């Protein structure tokens, strides 16, 4: 349940870093920033789904309607 989300986020981070390096080497700086943004969006959607699950469980536990 817990571990794979960590590895997913770390993997996305490292992959975007590698792609950035490659793009910077072939002097395409503007695409590199776009790749960073795309990676960030992917990670944020994953995190937000995780937060959704967390807030739902907390709402049910603590009657926080």
């Amino acid at each position: 349940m817990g571990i794979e989300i960590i590895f997913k986020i770390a993997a996305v981070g490292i992959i975007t870093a590698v792609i950035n390096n490659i793009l910077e080497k072939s002097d395409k700086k503007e695409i590199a920033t776009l790749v960073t943004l795309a990676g960030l969006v992917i990670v944020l959607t994953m995190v937000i789904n995780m937060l959704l699950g967390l807030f739902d469980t907390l709402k049910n536990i603590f009657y926080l309607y």
Partner: protein
Amino acid sequence: MLLIKIIAIAFVALVGYNVLKSVKPEFSVALIVAVGAVILILLSDSVVSSLSAFATLTEKSGISKNSFASVVKIIGIGYLTEYAASICEDGGSKSLGQKVQFAGKITVFLLALPIIMNVFTIIESVL
């Protein structure tokens, strides 16, 4: 044991956090938020069992149901604000964490208000 599992997850996340900090710092905060959520979800079923034990206790002792419900709400709000505030401080902005804690205090006070009100009505009826 659940505690050992959570400690293992925390250490793996710490290593991931440091790796991501050196490679791509924007992602490290997202990792911290995700791990915090995972740990709280893992803890949720033990919290449920402890709260249901308290619920049976309050039924026996005759305390009114809604005051126990608001106490549980206050615990939940404390649970959430501590989670958010520590992540904000970890992410680097202490002032944001303090603002979240301040918001939590205000909501807790708002929730505690009816309890204080009916304590006073009880005192007036006694006098």
